[in-house]
């Protein structure tokens, strides 16, 4: 089942952006990481036969850029004091996050096959108490940004400069608590805070625009005092430029940053990209190999 799953990265991660290798090379590294993350997502998806595979594939580039380029961490010491914090508030996106933690070397790749199974360290909904590298327990949506505000305040008070990332979903923008936190982050000028919003235009009952319209997003975040950018969240070059730009703006005391990432559900696997968008996707047994083949073909085609 893992025969076509590519091997792990050759270089060590966790030192922050490697400016010594040039932008193009950084992009290539992140693309390769995203490709492996997507394979990991398929591996985990097949264990359940259904689930949040579309979200995991869609968010892979955002996660790859974070773990293969931006974040400072030690894979063998997830509680290292000086690590940047990556907070996943969207518990159901754990499938994507575990894939990224495997790419980062924090979770063994072999363990991904226990995803969502009894006694696994990788439950369907992400929790800090189960998994190394998970900073918070998400799942009840709309908590992450508030906790991120507190972490950024706490670190700054203690004279530290670690960054705090929070990955949230467009559905989480429905919750008042997210906007309370957005105001709090601006009020306290938490410049080391970076919010990443996966705008996949979908939530549980259907398209975001039919459930609760949240646009215009860029205007809203800007009005809330944030340094806001909006990019194609599946375009690694655009993503990295936005991450870099956010880093430039990340003074200890200054405007918090947000990157609004428009992503495509199922990205990298045309079979799933073109299927009717579903929050919880069913994939037939016979389709998994097809998904892997399409993913591999797409990546190799792009590299040719």
């Amino acid at each position: 089942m893992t025969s076509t799953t590519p091997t792990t990265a050759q270089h060590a991660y966790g030192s922050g952006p490697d400016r010594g290798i040039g932008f193009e090379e950084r992009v290539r590294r992140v693309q390769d990481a995203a490709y492996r993350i997507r394979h990991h997502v398929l591996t985990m998806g097949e264990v359940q036969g259904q689930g949040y595979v579309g979200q995991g594939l869609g968010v892979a580039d955002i996660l790859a850029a974070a773990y293969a380029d931006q974040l400072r961490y030690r894979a063998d010491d997830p509680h290292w004091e000086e690590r940047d914090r990556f907070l996943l508030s969207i518990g159901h996106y754990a499938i994507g996050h575990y894939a990224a933690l495997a790419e980062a070397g924090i979770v063994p790749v072999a363990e991904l096959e226990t995803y969502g199974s009894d006694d696994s360290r990788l439950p369907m909904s992400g929790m800090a108490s189960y998994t190394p590298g998970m900073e918070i327990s998400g799942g009840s949506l709309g908590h992450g940004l508030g906790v991120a505000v507190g972490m950024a305040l706490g670190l700054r008070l203690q004279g530290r400069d670690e960054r705090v990332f929070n990955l949230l979903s467009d559905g989480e923008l429905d919750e008042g608590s997210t906007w309370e936190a957005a105001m709090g982050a601006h009020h306290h000028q938490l410049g080391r805070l970076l919010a990443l919003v996966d705008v996949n235009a979908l939530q549980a009952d259907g398209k975001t625009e039919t459930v609760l319209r949240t646009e215009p997003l860029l205007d809203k975040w800007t009005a809330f005092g944030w340094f806001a950018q909006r990019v194609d969240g599946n375009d690694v070059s655009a993503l990295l430029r936005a991450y870099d730009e956010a880093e430039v703006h990340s003074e200890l005391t200054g405007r918090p940053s947000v990157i609004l990432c428009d992503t495509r559900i199922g990205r990298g696997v045309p079979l799933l990209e073109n299927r009717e968008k579903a929050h919880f996707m069913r994939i037939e047994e016979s389709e998994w190999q097809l998904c892997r083949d399409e993913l591999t073909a797409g990546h190799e085609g792009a590299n040719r």
Partner: protein
Amino acid sequence: MTTAPASGTADAPSATPKLKTSAMIASFADPGQKTAPAPFGHALAAAAETDPRIVGLTADLGKYTDMHVFQKAHPERFFQMGMAEQLLFGAAAGMAETGLVPFASTYSVFAARRAYDFLCLDIAEPGLNVNIVGGLPGLTTGYGPSHQATEDIAIFRGMPGLTIVDPCDSIDIEHAVPQLAAAAGPSYLRLLRGNVPTVLDEYDYTFQLGKAAILRGGADVVFVSSGLMTMRALQAAEELAVHKIDVAVVHTPTIKPFDAETVLAEIDTPRLAFTLENHTVVGGLFETVASAATRRGLGKRVVPIGLPDEFLDAGALPTLHDRYGLSRSSIVARVLSELG
């Protein structure tokens, strides 16, 4: 949960494959059991045919609380509020203030935890006829504490004037919905959704708001139960009969106001008494029965079968029902050990 195994689980050749958490909403129906699809959605759509005051609201969980059935039948009376539970309850209160009868659905955890203040002050204090419909009550998902509403009844019991209904099956739900719409004042319904077991048609019983009912008599043991645990109680009673133990089952689908009259009459006998609930043993059915018994001056031992006072594990629902004592077999084992 702090005892998660270290890595390397995958290289041990698994003799028995581990069960999977699978869907957010796992079914608790037994294989081959008779079920009815989306009983809540159908009952609400039907009630709305004769009661023009009824409206349906949800917080991005229409598909997951069977509200989509109502939406389809009465699109102009359905309101999607987005994943904003505080808005859901605030708006439901506002609609009720104009004379409508809202049914507002979300998961029990978000109703009880996120939006409690809005339910309490906007709905319950003015005594409005707003009916809160909570999916995934107690332990009905393997997603862990974020989705497991193990203490929803404990939270809600303290709210003055709130009627709390914990139905057993599709038939309870079908009958509860129109009665809740007709009754003045707010309510909380612990929703069972999807293909819901049909159990109580085999008994001489119909749901009556505020009333408990004796589903079967028995000389040795008495079970007082609510919700899906009544189904398990009935199954366990049958199995215990094989052990020559005669078990009575008293179903008390309305937790508040509580039918102490019926229940205490059954408790106040020499039989060994149990409460069975899909809820923590803190603040739910057990303590409801215990406080009623104490008030009456009954010095009676009651054995609680319910969830422990803990944050529960993630995992497959059958595994968790076994682990925490809600499965038929663990009920049987518990009774046998109590009887020595």
